[in-house]
Each structure stands twice: as C-alpha cells, then as structure tokens.
C-alpha cells in the first residue's frame, strides 16, 4: 500500500534529522578481495559469513559465498567482474538471496534476481522469498490425484501427468522438447494454473521466440518467464531454476496450482560445473563435481502436491534434459531420470519420419499413471500401449512385403491408424472429452476400411458434427462428470458407424 507524501513533509524531516544527526563511525566485520578471476572472488577476512550468504563488494557488485575456509572465502560474482579489483572491501549482508514474488509478476519476463527483462518497467512485489527454500515435508504432502492436461493426445492418454508430479522431457536436440512444454502451457488457458517457464543458458533469440509464441497464443497472462541467457555469468545461470522455483512456490503455498518448466537442466549442470571448477573443487565423472546429483534433487523435491492443511496447492515440474545421440544412460540423464516420476522420451528418428510429437511411447513412462487420469480416459486407454508395442515389432515384416497372415495384417493396420491418430500439430490442444471420444472410436477398430492417413480428418470432422448436432448433451455430460458411461459409449459408437457408412458413399 502506498501513501503519498508531500514534498514539504519530506523537507521538514530531512532538516530535522540533519540538525540532530551525530556522526558515528560505522564498525562492522568485513573482508578484502585477494583475487578476482573468471567471476570467482577470493576474499580474506569475512569471519562468520554463512554458506550461501550474499556479500556486497561495491554498490553494483554482489557475490555469493560458497567456499568457506579458515583463511579465505570463495565467492561467485553475480554480475560482470570488471568492477572488482584486489584490495576492494567486501561487506557481508547477513542474508541469503531472496527473489520477489506475487501476482504482479504474471505476464513478465525477469532475471533470476528479479530484475525485469521485458522493458515494461518495474513491478511491485507482494513478497520476497529465499531462493533456496526447503522442500515440503512428508506431512505437508498429499497424494497426486488430479490430472494436469497437456492437451497432447500421446501424453494425456498413455503417459498422464498429475498435479504435483515431476515428469522429465528428454531427447536429442531439435526433437520438440520445448514444443511439448509450450503446448502444455498453452493448454492451461482457463484452467486456473499459473505457469513458470525457466530458460537456463539459452540463446536470447530462442527466449524471445518463446515469449512471442506464448503472447500470440494468449498464454502470457498467466505465465512468468524467468531467464538467464547463455551470455550471462555462470553463477546467474546456476541460480535461475532455484529462483524461479521460489517464485512458483509463493503461488503454491497460497493454494494455487502451478506448472514449472526447466529448459533445460543440462545447461544448468554445465553452469554448475563451470563454477565448481573455478572454485577448484574436485571433479568427477565427465568433470562434474560430486554434488551434481544434489543440485537437481533438491530442486525437484520442491515440486509437490500439498495437503489440504497446507492449502492444497501444487507445483508440477517438467524438467527438460538434452541427450547426445540418444544416450539416456549418460551421467546427467540417468541422474534426473532417477529423480523424476517418469519421463517422456523423444526420438530423432520418429521426428524425422514425420511422427510429431516424436514421443517413443515404449520408453516413456509416468509413474503416477492412472491415478491422475479421468475415468473417461482410463476407460478408453486400455490396450493402446500394447497395440503400439506389437505394431512396432511387426513393422519389420511389413518392409518385406511378404505374405503375411491375417492376424499380423490386423496388427499392422490398427497400428498404422493409431500412429496417425497420435500425430498432432503444435499449439493445437485437444480437450479431454475430444480425446475420450477419439480413443473410444480407435479402441473399437472402426476405421479399418479407410486408409490410415485419413484417420485424423475422419475423426475430427465427426467430432465437429457431433458436438453441434443433437447429441451435444452427451458431450457436455462427459466434460462435466469426466466419466464415460457404457450407455453413452454405445450411443457414440452407433452415431459413428452411421457417419462412416455415409461418407463411404
């Protein structure tokens, strides 16, 4: 709340205080810069500084104390290092870094220290939160039971995500990882979910593109972008995900549902490796430091579904990890896979052959699974994974164009139709009800007499007609109750059979 002060009040106060002011030397503990190199500052003195404490070197230069030794403290600079010289005095602030949070951040693009990056001027924060806040305890949590819809058919039907879950998006470069994340954000429109997109070490042009796309899709109203691009110092890139999580946590502890996307943790690991090597910490596998697992586990543990006593809010995390050559058994990928509650695995081969989103359903999993699915979707998702798995096995035979038995031909036919149905354009979210109807039709194998490539058109046109015609009642019923009764299912299938007999002629 602001109070307006008039200038005569202010002048009066200044004159009064100046008249009674007593000059006092300010005595406090401090330190002195011994060396400043590549963003790492070695400081002598600084007794009693705490781990992770913010220290001030001059008005603009702040650093975080990370290496505490008896004679010397190692600190990482949060800004460019050309202002620092040996001999500079360093003052401890007594505080750890905090980041602003609140509703005024929605629609804004900020850096990890809370400074606006979008040129829209300053904002008023409703609160400040420690960047490194502890994760919710065991007793603060509730079971993950509510679905978080991505609007992507392959995910919501076979690899469903629940509010409070951590689901990894993993794949080589240019396989559509960010696209899945953005689609999920766009699908939250009108669903009362706050979204936080965290860009770590990316190209500035890429972040600009993301903001542009989100604005165009009308998603920026409920989204906050926290960004540190590749040109920023490694310490700033390292802090970004923790800072963004603190921003998201503020909403979660106020009872809201939040989605946070870390794009990507591979670059985050590289930034931390940079800092660790400069601090001369011992390096291990792939030159990463010993606590490279911990930097991600403590980050992702902060995502949770809170109990009703704690407000019932949730923080769902979609971290992104980039693999090299599809190697998911490399160091960082295996680390993050073991932390998250499942992964969505994207393959270059699938992407290049036109299957987009390029999700390998066989290798992808959601450990929360059906617990976070509406009854309607659960009903129709039955054998789909199995059918797709069988299809992939049989594909080898299809290439030989050999004489195949009928059973195999069936599997190939249905598999091709299913695969076609799972293709989806970017920014084209599909509602839960549409998905339920589509997969009900697919489950009953009613499209055998049409070429596979017509699958999407046939079903989409049917749903369009169906929505507007007389049976829109059932459609609304499914949407509201999230269930698909046998009676409704039978009705839908009858209508569909009628529809396809019409278009055959």
């Amino acid at each position, binding site marked *: 709340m602001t109070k307006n*002060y008039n200038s005569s*009040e*202010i002048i009066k*106060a*200044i004159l*009064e*205080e*100046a008249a009674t*002011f007593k*000059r*006092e*030397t*300010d*005595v*406090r*503990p*401090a330190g*002195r810069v011994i060396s400043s190199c590549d963003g790492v500052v070695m400081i*002598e*003195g600084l*007794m009693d500084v705490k781990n992770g404490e913010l220290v001030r070197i*001059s*008005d603009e230069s702040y650093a975080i104390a990370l290496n505490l030794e008896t004679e010397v403290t190692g600190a990482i600079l949060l800004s460019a290092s050309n202002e620092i010289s040996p*001999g500079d*005095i360093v*003052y401890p602030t007594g505080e750890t870094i905090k980041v602003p949070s609140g509703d005024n951040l929605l629609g804004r693009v900020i850096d990890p220290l809370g400074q606006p990056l979008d040129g829209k001027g300053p904002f008023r924060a409703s609160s400040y939160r420690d960047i490194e806040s502890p994760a919710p305890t065991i007793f603060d949590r509730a079971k993950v039971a509510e679905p978080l819809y991505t609007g992507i058919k392959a995910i919501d039907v076979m690899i469903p995500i629940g509010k409070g879950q951590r689901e990894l998006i993993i794949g080589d470069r240019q396989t559509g990882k960010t696209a899945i994340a953005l689609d999920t954000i766009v699908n939250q429109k009108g669903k009362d979910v706050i979204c936080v997109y965290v860009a770590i070490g990316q190209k500035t042009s890429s972040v600009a593109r993301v903001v542009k796309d989100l604005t165009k899709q009308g998603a920026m109203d409920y989204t906050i972008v926290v960004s540190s691009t590749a040109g920023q110092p490694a310490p700033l890139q390292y802090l970004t995900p923790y800072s963004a999580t603190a921003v998201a946590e503020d909403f979660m502890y106020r009872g809201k549902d939040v989605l946070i996307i870390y794009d990507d943790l591979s670059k985050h690991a590289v930034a931390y490796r940079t800092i660790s090597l400069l601090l001369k910490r011992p390096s291990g596998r792939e030159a990463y430091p010993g606590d490279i697992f911990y930097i991600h586990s403590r980050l992702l543990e902060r995502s949770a579904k809170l109990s009703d006593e704690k407000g019932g809010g949730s923080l769902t995390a979609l971290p992104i990890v980039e693999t090299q050559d599809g190697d998911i058994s490399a160091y960082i990928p295996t680390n993050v896979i073991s932390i998250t509650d499942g992964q969505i695995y994207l393959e270059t081969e699938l992407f290049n052959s036109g299957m987009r989103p390029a999700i390998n359903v066989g290798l992808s999993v959601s450990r929360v699974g059906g617990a976070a699915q509406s009854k309607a979707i659960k009903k129709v998702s039955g054998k789909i994974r199995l059918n797709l798995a069988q299809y992939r096995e049989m594909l080898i035979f299809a290439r030989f164009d050999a004489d195949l038995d009928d059973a195999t031909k069936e599997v190939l036919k249905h598999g091709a139709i299913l695969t076609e149905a799972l293709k989806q354009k970017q920014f084209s979210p599909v509602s839960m009800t549409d998905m339920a109807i589509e997969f009900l039709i697919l489950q009953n194998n009613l499209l055998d007499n049409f070429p596979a490539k017509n699958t999407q058109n046939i079903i989409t046109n049917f749903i369009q007609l169906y929505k507007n015609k007389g049976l829109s009642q059932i459609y609304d019923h499914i949407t509201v109750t999230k269930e698909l009764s046998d009676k409704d299912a039978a009705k839908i299938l009858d209508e569909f059979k009628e529809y396809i007999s019409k278009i055959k002629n």
Partner: protein
Amino acid sequence: MNTLTITTSRELSPEKKFDIETKLQRKYGYFKAIYRVDQTILGGIIIFDGQTAYDGSLKTQLAKLRDRVVDKIQQ
C-alpha cells in the same frame, strides 16, 4: 603483520599519510598500509584491518541520515 587498507575519496599527501600511520601504530604496531582512492565514498575515510571495517565515509553517513528520514516520515 597486519595489512591495513585505507580508503579515501582523494589522494592523501605524504604528510597526511604519515600522520594517520603514526596514530594507527598505537593500535596495530607495525603494519603494511595499502592506500586506495575511491571517489564514490564522497569523503571521510574507511580503514580495514583484515577483519573489521571502520567506516567513517561520508557516503555511509548520508545513507544513515536517509534511513532516519525514511523512518521518521513513515511514522
């Protein structure tokens, strides 16, 4: 032996330096003096002895005055 960093807003004359060093010797004994010139402190002197900073700079005093004024207005 201590190393003391003495920061002032303008370069000190040799006489001034001698004067300060003599006075500090009473407390610190023999020490090494590093002089720094930092215009942003606006005036006064800051003496750092390796552990504690004795800040008599004009800048810090003005900051304190400002804090007092802000407190007073918000009452």
